């Protein structure tokens, strides 16, 4: 990670750290929404930004996680945060299952398939599949999450929980970026034929990217369920998938800071300009159009290299020949 980026994160973290003291409950709640969308958009970024797979049904994975949490909590009284890994796993498994037969599709074809998948999930939830999802009304009476005996209930509590999760996600995803796995996703996006020809099992990595992104969205869904205490199919409609897609593209596909900024702009800005009533969506739509014309790479297209520069510097300082023996300079 470059120093600039690190400073950027520290500044953002500092601003966030003081915001609970400066903001009222409503503003803080908006910020919590931003955090949830950031979690979701970061998970979609793995699929869409890093691996280049057009997934316009991400809300479905979010829904699977949220519903898993709600069902486990209301029927089996498992605390939300304990259910978190199960929710992630459920969403990941679901994604692997539905993506398996369609993952070979490219670009626009995959996009259409994932839209269909998102809709099927929503409609299945409305129709109360297995008698578990409560139909159009959804599930209510979900218990609030608890951390070490402390019940998470005020906006400040949720602020800490959600933004804590965002921080952990950003940290882990940055590490993931600079690894063999992160690179494999990039090769996939750049040129799948060349990736396969270089020895990358492209089909497997596509699937893993999908499952991991979905799993993360599933965990975000569990947190959402704990926050709202009531979930219904309408929280996971097509528009949610579109907004997430938008955040990633607008912020800068494949760029973690870009996605964070995108979440803030797409979620918080319309709230800030609520005073302008209907005009705000008009401006919002216009901004999107202008953005795609003048700045297609996104707002913050920070491309972090997928290796540690330290490693390269070390290798270049002590050059070796291809058999691994030291070479004299």
């Amino acid at each position: 990670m470059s120093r600039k980026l690190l400073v950027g994160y520290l500044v953002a973290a500092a601003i966030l750290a003081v915001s609970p003291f400066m903001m009222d409950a409503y503003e803080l709640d908006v910020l919590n929404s931003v955090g949830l969308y950031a979690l979701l958009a970061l998970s979609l970024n793995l699929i869409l930004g890093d691996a280049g797979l057009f997934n316009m049904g991400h809300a479905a994975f979010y829904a699977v996680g949220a519903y898993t949490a709600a069902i486990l909590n209301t029927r089996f009284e498992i605390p939300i945060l304990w259910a978190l890994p199960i929710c992630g796993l459920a969403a990941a498994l679901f994604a692997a299952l539905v993506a398996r037969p369609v993952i070979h599709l490219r670009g626009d074809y995959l996009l259409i398939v994932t839209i269909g998948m998102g809709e099927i999930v929503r409609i299945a939830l409305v129709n109360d599949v297995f008698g578990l999802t409560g139909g159009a009304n959804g599930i209510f009476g979900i218990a609030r999450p608890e951390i070490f005996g402390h019940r998470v209930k005020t906006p400040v509590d949720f602020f800490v929980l959600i933004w804590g999760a965002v921080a952990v996600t950003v940290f882990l995803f940055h590490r993931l970026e600079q690894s063999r796995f992160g690179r494999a996703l990039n090769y996939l996006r750049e040129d799948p034929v060349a990736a396969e020809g270089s020895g990358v099992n492209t089909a497997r990595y596509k699937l893993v990217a999908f499952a991991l992104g979905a799993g993360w969205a599933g965990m975000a869904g569990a947190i959402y369920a704990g926050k709202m205490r009531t979930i219904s199919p309408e929280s996971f409609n097509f528009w949610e998938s579109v907004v997430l897609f938008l955040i990633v593209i607008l912020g800068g596909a494949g760029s973690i800071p870009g996605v964070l900024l995108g979440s803030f702009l797409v979620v918080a800005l319309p709230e800030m300009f609520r005073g302008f009533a209907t005009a705000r969506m008009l401006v919002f739509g216009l901004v999107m159009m202008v953005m795609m014309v003048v700045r297609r790479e996104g707002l913050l297209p920070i491309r972090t290299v997928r290796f540690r520069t330290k490693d390269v510097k070390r290798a270049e300082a002590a050059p070796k020949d291809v058999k691994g023996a030291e070479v004299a300079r």
Partner: protein
Amino acid sequence: MSTILEVRNATKHFGGLTAVSDVSFDVPEGSIVGLIGPNGAGKTTTFNLITGNYKADLGTIRFQGKELVGMRTHKIVQLGIARTFQNIRLFQQLTAVENVLAGRHCRTKGGLLGAMLRTPGARREEEAAVERAISELAFVNLGDRSLELAKNLAYGQQRRLEIARALATDPKLVILDEPAGGMNEQETDDLVELIWKIQERGVTVLLIEHDMSLVMRVCEQIVVLEYGERIAAGSPSEVQNDPKVIEAYLGTEEV
């Protein structure tokens, strides 16, 4: 010399077109073999059959005794066959070192957890992979361009970067599809040197090339294709004097 690659009766149809018809040839281990022929003779298709990009309709392709037909490309790379592409397929938006690291992928194991937790094992593997990538860049004479984006490299450099990526997979056989395409004379001379250096490493080389001076200089054996069929095979001098080859390249003499 033992045979490393054995192509027998390989045939590939695309609809009504027979791109490769009953082609057989051997590649001896440690040699440099050239595959030549006029445009559309089926050279690249033959390469694609070997690397698993296409599946042969008929025939067998054996690499060190293992049947390749029906195997997925990345598995074939893992077995030890690496390739470059006729129309350069680099990861254009990525740095040179990242491109070469792609080749290291199949020789490393690091997974999700190792990356997230950055375990000592994962760190060591990563360092070794980068080290090797830098060495490969130096090997193809791109040692000073490691952090340059692939798209910013000159054409000849891009071709060499592709070779470095292929070599990073620890191949036993490397398949070069028109490595001198678009190169000037100086670059071609450097390429000849590079191909010999690859052979010195104990890697067998199979190449397609239109530049006859290069082919005749480096190849120990040549296979000639025309209209998807093998019309000749042998040493450069044998092939050069083969009437069928002369006919294919120059046409028949009016009598």
